[in-house]
Each structure stands twice: as structure tokens, then as C-alpha cells.
């Protein structure tokens, strides 16, 4: 009963529209996450099987990447620097790449509060990501769209606060 009411309200909600718009910007990788969302799932618990691993493969398998936040737990409401370690599927570090950072809270239908960027390559496949901030508790996604000689592909990391 509650479900039905929720879905109807949710499907018309601007939050969902915003989310869709964002998802196209972020590339197709957000779509699986967004696709899971019925109106009712907005603001509810994240799906039980979210993978919060810090090492992931990109959508089409071109890259293999690891995020290194400052510490074990990610602080809320403070700007952060991360290191993104990037390799091709065969383990070659990727130094020269164009990387776009994006993300948001799928359940809340909003993007990141700031505009993080990869500010410089650190060598050995590492890239400095600056300007990340998570202003709410809950499930976030952080996406990287990577363009290099190896190809263009997207990475999605789930982050829990």
C-alpha cells in the first residue's frame, strides 16, 4: 500500500528528473544505480548488495582503478583529497588521461555539492583528486570518466558515510 503511494509520488518528483539528467551527464554508468530506483526507493535504504570496494573495474573493462581516500572512514562535510590509481586491464599504470569526476546520492536525487577535479597526475598511475565533499550521511556514488590512449570508459565507486 505504502509502496504504491510512494511510487506515484516519486515518479513525478523533480528529484527523479534531476537524477536522470545528471545520469546522462555522468555517462551510462550511473544508469544501473538509477534504474534500481523506483520513486519509493528514494530516501529509503540502499539496495542490500551495494559493493563498497575501493578497487573496481570500469564499465567495459578497459580500466582497473583504486581510490585512496585520506583515511579509512570518509569524513562528512569537509573537503577531501583522494588519490585515484589507474591501470589498464593488463596492469599498465595510466598516467596520461583526461579524467572527469562526478557523482551524487542516487536515493536523494542530487549530485555532488562541489565540483571536484583531478588536479594533477602524481606518476605511477596515480592522480590527485581534489575538491570532493560529502555533505550528508548515506550512500554516495563517485564516478570517473576516463579518456586515454587505452580508450574511454567509466568507473563507479560506491561510498558509504
Amino acid at each position: 500500500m505504502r509502496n504504491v503511494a510512494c511510487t506515484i509520488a516519486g515518479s513525478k518528483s523533480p528529484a527523479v528528473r534531476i537524477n536522470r539528467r545528471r545520469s546522462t551527464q555522468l555517462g551510462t554508468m550511473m544508469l544501473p544505480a538509477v534504474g534500481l530506483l523506483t520513486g519509493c526507493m528514494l530516501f529509503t535504504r540502499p539496495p542490500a548488495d551495494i559493493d563498497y570496494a575501493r578497487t573496481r573495474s570500469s564499465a567495459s573493462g578497459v580500466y582497473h582503478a583504486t581510490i585512496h581516500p585520506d583515511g579509512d572512514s570518509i569524513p562528512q562535510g569537509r573537503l577531501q583529497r583522494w588519490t585515484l590509481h589507474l591501470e589498464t586491464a593488463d596492469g599498465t599504470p595510466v598516467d596520461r588521461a583526461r579524467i572527469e569526476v562526478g557523482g551524487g546520492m542516487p536515493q536523494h536525487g542530487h549530485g555532488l555539492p562541489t565540483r571536484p577535479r583531478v588536479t594533477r597526475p602524481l606518476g605511477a598511475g596515480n592522480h590527485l583528486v581534489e575538491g570532493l565533499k560529502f555533505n550528508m550521511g548515506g550512500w554516495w556514488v563517485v564516478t570517473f570518466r576516463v579518456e586515454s590512449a587505452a580508450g574511454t570508459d567509466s568507473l563507479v565507486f560506491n561510498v558509504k558515510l
Partner: protein
Amino acid sequence: MNRSRPLRQRHLFLSLLGLLTFLASSGAAVRGRSASTDRWSEQERALLRSLTLSSLGPLPADPSNRYADDSLAARLGRRLFFDERLSSTGTVSCASCHMPDRQFQDDRALAHGVGLTSRRTMPIAGTAYSPWQFWDGRADSQWAQALGPLESAVEHGGDRTQYLHLIASDYRREYELIFGRLPRLDGLPAHAGPVADSVRAVAWRRIAPVRQEDITRVYANIGKAIAAYERRLGFAPSRFDQYVAAELAGERPTAASAFSADEEAGLRLFIGKARCANCHNGALLTDNSFHNTGVGLPGVALPPDRGRATGVRQALASEFACTGRYSDAGPDDCAELRFATVDGEELVRAYKTPSLRNVAERAPYMHAGQIATLEDVVDHYSRAPEAPAGHSELQPLRLTTMERSQLVAFLRTLSGPLVGPLAPPAGR
């Protein structure tokens, strides 16, 4: 459609609730220590702790103001904050709108200075924790913020040479002890500055650029002294903080910390179903970010207000920004500005999430005082109306009458004393 069903459900719900409260209270009496672990899950307890003052970290440094923690600067700033001569009429000080015995605000929907402003006066305590000042965050530090109203035609209405002359005649010793020598005054008009008033603006343009810069540096230092004062204004624990402290320690509630059943239910709604803590999070109950919450246009005709969409551009363009020549920050210190979101629909009519500390003590609410009471605020969240422009982030909560009054009861527990040098300085 089926009217009797919700009603019957409600009866069932109420009697269930009655039973539960009975069980809970009798259980609490018997079990004592374990009561709070029953009431709040591990996750909820962590969230509750994060909302209390005990989770408030140390004051963040302000690298753009090297005088921020200088006690002489704070003392001078305190005097300036209360000095009505810092205005075109000699009648308006910061404290005219930010009244210390009124939570540093003025109980009005729209502030009155020399003229009428188009926003509501914001309380000041705790704002040193915020990377952005004003409802739209158009200043990126407290000192940059202070320099806005001083030159605004509707607030203090003053100008830069006027303030320089006042510092030279009445505050020279204090000023020079902190900031070094004042610039020469010879040949400077009594009134000049880059303000709306054309006479004073023309007079300003006639001043040589190097002297303009010297004058502006004094002006910036006025802001830095005021900021050093404002940084010292904070919050002491509220009943909410005491309640959580007792719950987490597994102690029996005392008269100071006990919550009524309604207050406790309100808190549960706040962190749960009503999702208030999504945005009103952390020890100051704000995420220091900007959201469109569908607050309506004020009843009086005002210029269009696009909130953060305009504010962020003003912050970036400000001569008093963290990255500007009057800032003491190094190139790596201005990350908030560097990585600020500057465009997108989400910024339209987005406003800074206000702290909810002492919120019951300072109606009316919202950026232009659009909502008169806490009851009406909660009603707004329950209905979640469409925004007049942009998109509201809210979803209708459809709270029952009882839930709404529980939320209001909880909001009233967030009141506590202010701390810091609240009163005007002695000897005035």
C-alpha cells in the same frame, strides 16, 4: 476514498502506541541501563552523537584572516560590532540587526537598517564553522561578509573613507597596535567609496589607485577585526545535547536531560522518516550547503532572488574573496572557492541550510521570513510545495497532526545558552 479505514488504522495505531509507551516506560524502570540501547539502535546512536555539541570539532582556522585568533583584534572587533557611528546615519551598528539578547538576529521577516533589506537577518553564533556566509553564500569568510552590510545602501549605508576617518580619530591606537600604521588622510574626502550612491562613487574614482588600495586595506582590516570577534560566539549544550549524553552513557535522565514521549518521537522522526537530518546534520544541525526547499516568495514585492545561483558568482568575483589581494591565504588555502559548484539548476533558489540550534527562540523563519512559526515550518516540510523557481529537493512527508507536533516539540529541545563575549564592550 475509503475514509473509515485510515481512521480505524489510526485508532489501532494510537492504542498500539499507548501500549508501546507503557511497555517502554515500565521496561525502562525495570531494566535501567539497557533502556537506551533498546530505544536507539547502534546506527541511530552514532547519528545522535554526531548531532551533539560534543561532536563539534575545534574552530576551523581561517587562513584568509591572519588576525582571526588575535585577541586584540577580537577586542577591537567587538567595539566595532556595537558602534553605531559605522553608518551613514549614526544609528546603525551590526548589533542593530544582530542583537545579542535576541540570538544575534532581530525577529523580523526582513531586516531594517538605513533602509529595508530583502532578506532575513541570520543569527551569528557558530558561523565561523561555515565556509560560506549569507543565505546565498556570497561571501567566503566572516571578514568578507562583514564588508557587505557596511557598504550596503540599506544596511549601514557608510563608505570606505568615512570608516577610515573614524578609525583614525577614535580607534587609531588599537588599530595600529594590530595592523600597523594607518595610511595618510590628507586630501581624502569625508565620504568616498565604491558604493551605489553616485556622489561618493565619483569621489572614490578621483582617488589615486594606490591610495584606494591603502584605504581598502583598512576597510578589509575592519572586517578581519569584526570576524575575530564573531568567531568567539558559540553555543552551550541544549536539553537535546544533555538527553543524548545521558542516553549514550546509559544514565537515567535527570530533570535537565529528560525528554517527553513527544520530544523523543519528534527526534525519531527528525533522524528517520522526516529526513530532516539529511540536511540539518552535524553538531550545528547544518550541512553548510545550499538547497532549494521550495520556500515561497515573500508577501511583499522584492527583486527576483535566485539564491545560490547568483551568490556563488558574487563570491568568486568579490575583491575580498579568499583568493583576492586583501586575503592572507596561500594559493592552496582557498579550496572551497576553487571547487565550488558554479552552475546548474540545483543552485536556483538554493539557500544555505540554517543551523537549528536555538531555532525556537528566533521566529520568523526562512531567508525572507516567509514562514511565521515552527508549526508552519513543519507543515511546509509535510506538504513540500513546488518551488517558485528551480526544483525543490523535498518530497511530501504527509505527516499526521501528531507527528507534526512531535517534530515541533523536538525542535524546541534544541535551545541552549550562547557563549562568548555577548554583551557590548564596557565603557561605551
